[in-house]
């Protein structure tokens, strides 16, 4: 459905669509997987050159002063084309750094990030967000400047040159840059070829000049950073789900069984309609929440609603797609499996359906006035 975008947004969305189409797609993903590459370097260079990261940086800090919604337009397309680039993670880092009160602290790192010379990805509890288990097990000792503990499921940890460690829980919140060399990084591979890394900090000393924020500011930034990551992954999932639905619709219109295209069977038709409705609703939801996020008016429960629903629908759609494809869908050769596996990774990343529906309950029940 038409998103009622501004003219510059429309233009950006078109550019993003073209770039992702040119650089992404199932064939490209297979090549990356064969090479065990975590990042599509060509696509990423192109994105850096197109200055997409600058969209989320405030104008006062050299950016375009747009918002999370704008970069989500590109994330949706990246999801649609199965693109393997650290766009969400880099944008979230850039957003956070450019919003630190003390501009000087973030300055150099931010500039490096924007020009693609240093990949900095977030390391937060959101990476493995789970109700009750949300605390990532990292603590920061402000006086000593020491970081201790470990953070699992960090994305693009194989290529990152530094991490934006953001701790919102506990008595001493912090947002700080930690160079890769200071952390012990264990990289595991996901089913879709992406990676999940565990960072371990053994009493890592954080020099004051690397600290972006502390105290209440750090807590606020860390929470906003996590909301950004959840929303961005939701946007990517929407593109992915829409693409899987398209592939499936094409297939069931052609594939014959019992002398008819299988897409003429009412049960499959209604399943496809439900998928279509879900994609429509989730698109409206994610972009409405993004608009509220950019306006500084979002309720965090909305973020969990968006991620819970985007995760659930994407998985349902790829499951349905696999089933409708029959045996052919079960082969490595067929592309639908790529969508399936990407959906598994993205739906778990930054919290899955059940975790977010519990978080949603907690946030609305604690805040909720019963009318």
């Amino acid at each position, binding site marked *: 459905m038409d998103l009622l975008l501004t003219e510059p947004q429309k233009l950006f969305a078109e550019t993003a669509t073209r770039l992702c189409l040119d650089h992404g797609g199932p064939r490209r993903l297979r090549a990356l997987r064969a090479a065990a590459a975590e990042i599509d370097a060509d696509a990423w260079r192109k994105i850096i050159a197109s200055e997409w990261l600058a969209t989320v940086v405030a104008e006062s800090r050299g950016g375009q002063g747009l918002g999370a919604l704008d970069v989500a337009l590109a994330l949706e397309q990246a999801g649609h084309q199965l693109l393997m680039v650290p766009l969400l993670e880099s944008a979230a880092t850039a957003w956070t750094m450019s919003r630190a009160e003390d501009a000087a602290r973030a300055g150099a790192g931010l500039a490096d990030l924007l020009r693609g010379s240093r990949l900095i990805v977030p390391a937060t509890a959101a990476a493995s967000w789970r109700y009750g288990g949300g605390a990532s097990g990292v603590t920061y000792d402000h006086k000593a400047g020491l970081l201790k503990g470990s953070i699992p499921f960090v994305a693009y940890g194989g290529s990152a040159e530094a991490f934006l460690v953001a701790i919102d829980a506990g008595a001493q919140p912090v947002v700080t840059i930690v160079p890769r060399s200071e952390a012990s990084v264990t990289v595991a591979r996901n089913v879709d070829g992406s990676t999940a890394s565990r960072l371990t900090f053994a009493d890592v000393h954080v020099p004051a000049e690397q600290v972006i924020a502390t105290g209440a500011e750090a807590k606020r930034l860390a929470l906003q950073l996590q909301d950004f990551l959840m929303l961005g992954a939701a946007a990517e999932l929407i593109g992915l789900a829409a693409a899987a639905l398209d592939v499936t619709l094409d297939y069931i219109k052609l594939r014959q069984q019992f002398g008819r295209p299988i897409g003429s069977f009412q049960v499959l038709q209604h399943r496809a309609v439900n998928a279509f409705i879900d994609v429509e609703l989730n698109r409206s939801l994610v972009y409405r929440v993004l608009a509220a996020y950019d306006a500084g008016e979002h309720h965090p429960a909305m973020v969990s609603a968006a991620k819970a629903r985007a995760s659930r629908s994407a998985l349902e759609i790829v499951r349905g797609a696999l089933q409708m494809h029959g045996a052919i869908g079960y082969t490595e050769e067929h592309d639908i499996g790529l969508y399936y596996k990407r959906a598994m990774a993205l739906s778990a990343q930054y919290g899955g359906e059940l975790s977010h529906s519990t978080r949603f309950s907690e946030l609305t029940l604690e805040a*909720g006035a019963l009318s």
Partner: protein
Amino acid sequence: MPSPTWDNTTLFVDDNPADRAFRHEVREWVGENLPAALCNRSTRIDPPELKPWHRKLYERGWIAPHWPEEYGGMGATLTQQIILFEEISRVGAPTPYPHGLNFIGPLIIDVGTPEQKAKHLPPILTGDITWCQGYSEAGAGSDLVRLETRAELDGDHFVVNGHKMWTTNGHFADWMFALVRTDRNATPRHAGISMLLIDLKSPGITVRPIQTIKGDAEFAEEFLVDVRVPRENLLGALNDGWKVANRLLGSERFTTGHPRNAAVLLNKARQVAELTGATREAGFLHRLAALEIDLIAFSAYYRHAAALHGEKRAPFSMAPVIKIVGGELGQRASELLVEAAGGYGALADDMRVGNHVINPAAEMFEMRRVTVGSGAVEIQRNIIAKRVLGLPS
């Protein structure tokens, strides 16, 4: 960082400053003018009891926000129409029935003759005349191709014979707008249908209420035997009734499919659950969260669709999607309400929760109606499958 208050009935409201002022004005006026007896009823209110409230809205000038000003409407934007609906339903007040104001009124404005407009529009606004819609028949619910009620020209009158069913408020109505067959040999079959305006006091008409599962009479059936309808009561051209009926722009979907219906039910479910202890059950908490999340998604879609509709850019799929999701969400919410109520959920009578009196079973039966009859959700899904997704027959 404390979270802002969560209110599931105002999700994604996006009034501009003028809208906000209008909302405030409506809210104040409703507070002062709404009869308390009409508030928060869990069962349907029949048209006669609704008349004074209809009249008040008329006198305030808010009865027909979507009609052009020249016909006594407000010429309001869709957002203003929605605001009126929201502010009226916010306090649990009923909205006027749509058959005159939303269905036949706009059709008469659109294709009626000057005489038809002069005669029929004013009493729709005042509420003096109640209309009902005569489309369904025993054999033709979702499937109007099988329409059997026939009208034959005899001089300057049509002679109508047939049997209409499931006409909401038929036993309270003064007039009925009906689809009738005027050419029995036309192909395709719906090309032989015309729209007639029928005075229900005409000789040859017998109206009988139909008792529903809820225990009230919401529908009626009408037997028409040699009923003479003046030729000037033909709306639109002869044999053009199918097209006339399909001219409705669908803005009425925005009130009947409003997410607030489900939101209010979910709030009731939560209150009842506190009372019965269901809030300590994982299943209840999970279903409540799932429904609240579906509600927020639907609310986002709804606002988005309204904005597009306001700019005349709404896609074809919008109306069936709102019908399906709004209908099913309300049903699921009412089912959760019944489940949360435990033994109270099976009671025929009201229960008291805090300051509210509610009747979970009645609410549930009310919601069942949404997906019954013409335009049932299965058919809406068939429509999307074929016309939006292009799936083969």
